[in-house]
């Protein structure tokens, strides 16, 4: 069952920590957002394989935007 990973805050994509095909564990960072001088990881809610990364470094995302999809 694919699962969307959503940004829990508004920020700028600082780093993409996983790529499509990567296996991640629950709590692993998938992307890292930068907001107000803080780096905040967006974590995988469960273990799985990354299906899509929907953002690019430097892009602004809003709270609730889908940033990646888990297989």
């Amino acid at each position, binding site marked *: 069952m694919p699962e969307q990973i959503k940004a*829990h*805050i*508004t*920020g*700028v994509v600082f780093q993409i920590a996983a790529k499509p095909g990567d296996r991640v564990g629950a709590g692993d960072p998938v992307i890292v957002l*930068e*907001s*107000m*001088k*803080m780096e*905040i990881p967006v974590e995988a809610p469960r273990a799985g394989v990354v299906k899509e990364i929907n953002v690019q470094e430097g892009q*602004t995302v809003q709270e609730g935007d889908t940033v990646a999809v888990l297989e």
Partner: protein
Amino acid sequence: MLRAVLVANRGEIARRVFRACRRLGVGTVAVYSEADRDAPHVREADQAVLLGPAPARESYLEIERVLDAARRSGADALHPGYGFLSENWRFAEACERAGLTFVGPPAEAIRAMGDKTEARRLMAAAGVPTVPGSPGPVADAPAAEAAAGGIGFPLILKAAGGGGGIGMARVDRATDLAAAFAAATRRAQSAFGNAAVYLERYLERPRHVEVQVFADRHGTVVHLHERECSIQRRHQKLIEESPAPGLSPATKRGLTDAAVAGARAIGYVNAGTMEFLVDAAGRFYFLEMNTRIQVEHPVTEEVTGLDLVVEQLRVAAGERLAWRQDDIVQRGAAVECRVYAEDPDKNFLPSPGTLTRLHPPGGEGIRVESGVETGSVVSVHYDPLLFKLIARGDGRDEALARMRTALDATVVEGVRTTIPFLRKALDHPDVRRGVLHTQMVDQGAFR
């Protein structure tokens, strides 16, 4: 005197410096990014120059653009505020080379204090106590293990080129050291472009007490007493006050003497802050020196009745300090609360957005230093500080009571803020009694 001062900053500190300029009849120049086009600091200056796009790297941190703005506007001096370029010695040097008076210390003092291991060495040589630790950066994990033997656990890894708590890691056991060292080195490299890491003993439940120092170019160095800044999250301050409650006269004397000796030893000029950790026995250790005006300078102004920013400008213009040490006395007490656009219920996560309503408090003994107004957009690109509330009283209880009332009277809508946290903190029995330490927030004292 100076002709016109460009403030290479934004928000409340830019407005604070402009106010000091107006008191002295000095012209004002604002700089701004595209995100700050409508910001209050831009409107208030005599002139305003656009630096570039919203990201700080392309605007407020872009040295050439800032210098060019000074040239175009005819400013003859530059005030860096805090954050951004304020502790970048290359920037201070570039200002002087461009013929601009840098309102701050000499570039060499910024450089020496910015290198945290060099700062420790210089202060130890000046007789200032430092936290037991490695004499310099450690090269690799085996070297860290060797140094740890003489320091003991728990210890803390710190970035030599860092500050502000970024990249610090506590290590409790020898078996964790190698992995923690590797992580701290990586983090130091990415945050500061300098992978050097050193070790210090980790002090349990210390207080953070700092001393405001001020020096002119004619050899006078004074202190403006201490500030207590123990209530911090992620090593960043949330509440500050002066005097530090319950500090013994001997500790206080030791701190102020050490601060003046340290500043004198490095040929310091202008406003600076010597930060110390104080343990339960009243022993104190040099932590670092901030070579700029601090966010919390208003509490010192409120208890001394002196204007630190006006004095920064006068000293930068080459004048002698207007104060003698004996004239600088603490009267009453003052406390500052930082209102950040952060969600205290979610571990202080940033909360950017638009301020749909802002109603700051007023009343006797209340001072507000704000960078925003109703309608302001709180951007993801900058520090989350919205405004500072400062309360003064005849004594600490009165200052805290006024602050508590002021927090209840403050209305902020559109973003989440630290106000609910600040209320809880001020209601806490230990805070009311003045029993404070730097780990209170992280240990959940105010949940």
